[in-house]
């Protein structure tokens, strides 16, 4: 046994305990998600069978149903059709249906992408500029302004739903991508400013002063020297903003309908025959989970230090 460990280091027993707790926690949080992923690969019958099937024959019916619109036809009509051209047509025919066209899912999904990434970029960009100004300049009423910015998050955003609904209708921003980007940016901005200000405060001002003496303007110094230094904070802030605008449901239901509807209000409306089409909903949510997951994994190495910012100083 290694006896040379420092007293400050946790013992191997407490390390094992910690690992066990983390595993239990991970299992608990992963059960619903894995159930959802499993459902997406079930067929319509096994998805609602009782007792629930843990082992099942995988099927892509959910994904096919997610991406297509179908209609039920009589057996005679189906027999009169030429043989199915590909596997998904065959799958739909076996359910006595024909594909009538693509569903709206892809459009809703790309709306979510545009609005999610658009508002994340806008929040982080504006937040970084504001945070830099608050961190470096003598802004009149600085503390009051910062408190005001924070106070916009002291009520749930949905509390102002009615005024926003009326405003958006008058301004013609309802059901537009721009409108949703602006809305999510406004909600995220206070978080972005506060988070990023903490990071900017930690960057010594000598860096940009050196850059300014080296022949750069303050704005150039900001982009060349300060922003790369703030990458950790930017990554963490971007993830928080992305998660919020990606998942946001209430405003999306209220303000979008045809043109700019995002995936969250769309997925629950996937209705199958004689009940909810659970495999399709499972498929929709599984695909919906992917971008945030990938985004977080890409920025993961910045995230740990990002979330514990302020706690660990150089």
């Amino acid at each position, binding site marked *: 046994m290694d006896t040379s460990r420092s007293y400050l280091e946790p013992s191997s027993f407490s390390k094992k305990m910690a690992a066990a707790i983390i595993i239990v926690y991970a299992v608990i949080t992963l059960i619903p998600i894995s159930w959802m992923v499993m459902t997406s690969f079930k067929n319509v019958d096994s998805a609602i069978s009782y007792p629930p099937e843990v082992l099942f024959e995988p099927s892509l019916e959910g994904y096919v149903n997610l991406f297509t619109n179908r209609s039920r036809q009589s057996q005679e009509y189906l027999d009169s059709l030429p043989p199915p051209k590909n596997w998904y047509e065959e799958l739909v025919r076996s359910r006595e249906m024909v594909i009538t066209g693509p569903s709206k899912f892809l459009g809703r999904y790309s709306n979510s992408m545009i609005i999610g990434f658009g508002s994340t970029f806008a929040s982080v960009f504006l937040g970084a500029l504001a945070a830099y100004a608050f961190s470096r300049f003598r802004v009149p009423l600085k503390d009051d302004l910062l408190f005001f910015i924070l106070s916009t998050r002291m009520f749930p955003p949905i509390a102002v739903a009615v005024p926003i609904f009326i405003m958006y209708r008058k301004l013609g921003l309802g059901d537009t991508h721009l409108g949703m980007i602006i809305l999510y940016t406004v909600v995220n901005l206070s978080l972005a400013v506060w988070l990023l200000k903490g990071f900017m405060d930690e960057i010594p001002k*000598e860096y940009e002063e*050196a850059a*300014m003496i080296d022949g750069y303007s303050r704005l150039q110094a900001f982009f060349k020297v300060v922003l790369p230094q703030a990458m950790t904070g930017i990554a963490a802030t971007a993830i928080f903003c992305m998660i919020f605008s990606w998942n946001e449901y209430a405003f999306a239901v209220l303000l979008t309908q045809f043109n700019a509807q995002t995936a969250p209000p769309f997925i629950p409306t996937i209705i199958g025959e004689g009940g909810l089409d659970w495999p399709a909903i499972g498929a929709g949510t599984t695909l919906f989970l992917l971008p945030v997951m990938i985004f977080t994994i890409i920025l993961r190495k910045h995230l740990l230090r990002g979330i514990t910012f302020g706690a660990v100083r150089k």
Partner: protein
Amino acid sequence: MAKVELKKLFKTYNKKIKALEDINLTIEDGQFFVLLGPSGAGKTTTLRCIAGLEKIDSGDVLFNDENITHDQPASRDVTFVFQQYSLYPHYTVYENLAFPLRSPMRKLPEQEIKNKVEKIAEMLKITNKLKNKATQLSGGEMQRVAIGRALVREPNIYLMDEPLSSLDAKLRETLRVELKNIQLNLNATILYVTHDQAEATTLADKIGVLKEGKIVQIGTPEEIYENPNSIYVSQRLGSPKINILPGSLFKLDNNIPKIGLRPENIELGDGPYEGRVISIENLGSETVVAINFQDNEILASIQGSYKSSINEKINFDFNTNKVLKFDNIDQRIYER
């Protein structure tokens, strides 16, 4: 390189705290000028005002007789070596050195940048570190690169804010010598801030002594050492520190309130004054003996080693010509 002049410079922080008061200073082209003073005396503020990082309340900054008081830092063409945090951590050493040359003010062709960077890297002996990230360097290497980033340009003036203070003693000495050589080779105008008297005396062509935001004396290191105009200035240079004693203790011609006695001007062995040994410190090439003389502590520094023991009676004397005389408000009394 340029001649740099400061005229009637005033600077306050937050409209209350006086940082600089009526600073008048001329740094000749090619001069190594050292600002000496304790922390809070306004040394760094002076540098920052010349660089344009601080707005001054009133006064003028002139480069080669041209008034640049209201110019942006980027257009002043100066370099600044900071005490710390001096490298851009996300860049390699090469990129750090090339950074000022790639700025919109200069935009040199890459080949020329490469030549300049390599020349400087060779001079500072960091050629093999060029590909390293700035964060993968030791403290000494970092500061070399920081100095290198200043040297790749030929600015109006090099401003250096205690560039060696964060280094260990040995490295500090080596870099000090290197810095002086570089300055002589380039005939560079340098304004160097320090509170380290060894740096001041070895590097400076001229020293300016700052006290609470005012310049109290300007002169060569010899002048500042041998001919200080006040007790404050006399205490800036010399190790061990100058002895400041009441004049009444000694047989001097007239009533002198205070005298300053450099430790090396005291002769031990015999003489009219008798005290007791408090401590003996052997520093190798010299020995510092502390003497209690009528309840005043006097430091004497003797070449080589000195044999004595604590509490032993000791006689001493000094050359009256080497005594610095001061009045009641700590100003120098000059002989006619």
